[in-house]
């Protein structure tokens, strides 16, 4: 298990390769990558991601450990950035490795669902006009947790 919280960009290709090389015995590897996309209204120029240093690492570690205990995973990876990111930049990735595909998929979705609503990150959209708006938590994201 590896948890990384950093402001610097990460190298998706290198991280994916490294994770796959380290996943001995796995038959299935799933990755999820989150990218800063245009807001639905289309005026966003950047996103500020605030986090709670200390608690963030603890929360991510605890979420990943729970995934490892619930599914028969050989490994899990979480990388999450903070600070100012621009449209098209990669915010975060998770990866899971398991003997079977269903476990790898389910664990990756579990990581994402918990990371969305239980890891202390907050997003603020920086709009073209100089305005800024905190992203509100979605009811859907909270509801997604009831699945697990």
């Amino acid at each position, binding site marked *: 298990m590896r948890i990384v919280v950093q402001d610097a960009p990460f190298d998706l290709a290198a991280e994916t390769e490294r994770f796959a090389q380290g996943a001995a015995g796995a038959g299935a590897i799933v990755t999820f990558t*989150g990218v800063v996309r245009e807001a639905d209204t289309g005026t966003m120029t950047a996103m500020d991601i*605030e986090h*709670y240093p*200390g*608690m963030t690492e*603890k*929360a991510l570690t605890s979420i990943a450990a729970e995934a490892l205990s619930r599914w028969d995973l050989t490994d899990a990876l979480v990388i*999450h950035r903070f600070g100012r990111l621009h449209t098209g930049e990669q*915010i*975060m990735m998770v990866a899971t490795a398991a003997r079977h595909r269903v476990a790898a998929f389910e664990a990756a979705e579990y990581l*994402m669902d918990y*990371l*969305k*609503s*239980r*890891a*202390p*990150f*907050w*997003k*603020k959209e920086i709009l073209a006009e100089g305005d800024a708006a*905190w*992203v*509100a*938590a979605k009811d859907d*994201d*909270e509801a997604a947790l009831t699945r697990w």
Partner: protein
Amino acid sequence: MDVLYFAWVRERIGVPKERVETDAVTVAELVAELSAREDRYAAAFADLSALRVALDQELAEFDAPLAGVREVAFFPPMTGG
């Protein structure tokens, strides 16, 4: 204890962190005490259903006891990923 604020709670209260001396027994009592102190706290804590609290970096409920807690943090629902 240290009290930390994040996101719009931090912006509304105006500081990211402060030292608070209190006899509050629960989080809810601490919230009431701060709210009574100044309008900016009252504004930030007006709707507790829009807030979350962590005690020593673990999510907690507003009726949780503060005994032994060194760090309390208030923030809106998280939006990671």
